[in-house]
């Protein structure tokens, strides 16, 4: 019951979707789009589960005065404020039938004042870490590292004036070495070749993993409880 039922569900859902691809007639016609909606709905419940788990963890920290518990109050407060603003459509023009993200709503206000700047700054912070990582990666000790360095440098120089002025003087027969041209060539030729090989490899990996999942060979998503 604990492990067999989910394996049966996985098998039937997977097989039905594959059959629906090859037999686009009743009773399989439209099943893929219907299952896709089911999947989206379950994904929202997963978000709710994530929110519930977040509260469980932070309430536990607050209750037991664990390390940094005061910051957990910030997390919980921010969570409830945003959730209340969004679910209750506070300030939405047009009331319940209005758009929950409309201008003038509290949800949009919190999005602009807190969520968007926090997200953008958090990701922009990565620029500094990428810079420090590139310092380590860009030491051209081997041929492979040199290729990586040259490709990344050409791509980085392309949108800058320096990229243009460094090579604009090249004579016409050598114009293919002009950084904007070279950058376009790197993107559309060696980069494309590498990406294609990776995509083909990933596709084969996904197909074999899908088969393993449907046939019940791969069961790690069930966890270890009840195994035996």
């Amino acid at each position: 019951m604990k492990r067999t039922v989910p394996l049966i569900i996985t098998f039937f859902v997977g097989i039905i979707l594959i059959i629906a691809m090859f037999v686009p007639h009743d009773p399989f016609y439209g099943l893929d789009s219907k299952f896709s909606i089911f999947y989206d709905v379950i994904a929202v419940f997963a978000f709710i589960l994530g929110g519930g788990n977040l509260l469980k963890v932070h309430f536990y920290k607050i209750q037991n005065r664990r390390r940094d518990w005061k910051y957990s109050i910030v997390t919980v407060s921010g969570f409830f404020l945003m959730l209340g603003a969004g679910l209750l459509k506070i300030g939405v023009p047009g009331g319940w039938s209005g758009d929950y993200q409309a201008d003038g709503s509290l949800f949009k206000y919190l999005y602009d004042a807190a969520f968007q700047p926090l997200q953008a700054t958090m990701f922009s912070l990565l620029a500094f870490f990428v810079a420090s990582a590139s310092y380590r990666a860009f030491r051209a000790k081997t041929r492979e590292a040199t290729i990586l360095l040259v490709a990344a440098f050409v791509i980085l120089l392309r949108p800058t004036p320096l990229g243009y002025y460094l090579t604009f003087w090249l004579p016409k027969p050598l114009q293919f070495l002009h950084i904007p041209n070279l950058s376009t060539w790197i993107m559309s030729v060696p980069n494309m070749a590498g990406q294609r090989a990776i995509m083909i490899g990933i596709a084969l990996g996904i197909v074999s993993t899908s088969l393993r999942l449907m046939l019940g060979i791969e069961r790690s998503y069930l966890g270890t409880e009840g195994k035996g």
Partner: protein
Amino acid sequence: MILDAQPILSSPLANAVGVWIASLLTLMIFSFLYKDNPFYKFAEHLFVGVSAAYWMCVGFWTTLIPNMIARLWPSHMGGVLPAVVGNQREWGYVIPLVLGLILLTRLVTRIAWLSRWAMGFVIGFAAGTNFTRYLQSDFVSQIHSTMVPIYEPGATTAATIGNIFSQIVIVGGVVSALIYFYFSKEHKGIFGRTARVGIWVLMAAFGASFGYTVMARISLLTGRMGFIIQWISGSSW
């Protein structure tokens, strides 16, 4: 709408307060560049709470309401989605409701195993869809796009030679990189040398991806810096 807060939230004062909050939160995050500190921790914890609630609300209003509740109880949706009030009830949507509720049992340790039924559906859907999708779009179509004629007459001799060279690099690059990924045969001799060329092609691809990632991050950084400059100059509030 519980509270008619729109006039307050649209006022110039509210805008100024919003800009100040956004700017201070931006500086709090940047303070991590010095070292981990209480301001950063505050902003980080706020981000976790706010983003979890944000995605829950987005999922609720864009998926749960129109795709499940409006299909199961259309007559009750008059206030939120008036267009669906006359629709027939679609009983099939009880399935995601039940599976979704089952998923929430994960929060109750004693019956947490029930959530595997919903996971079974999610995994089965992902496996069944990706099986055909990846075979079509990432396997067959990528091979199809690679297997094109090497010689195509261009406008000039140089362009034609350039195109032939590029096409050879693409075909040779894909084949050699795939050989590098083939581990069932030892990488020795001609096979090993081809795999080595494959590594060079992959390095060029990784370098290009790395360059693009750095550019995207720096673009975000300049955006935030621009926002801070506007805030300091007072032009945004």
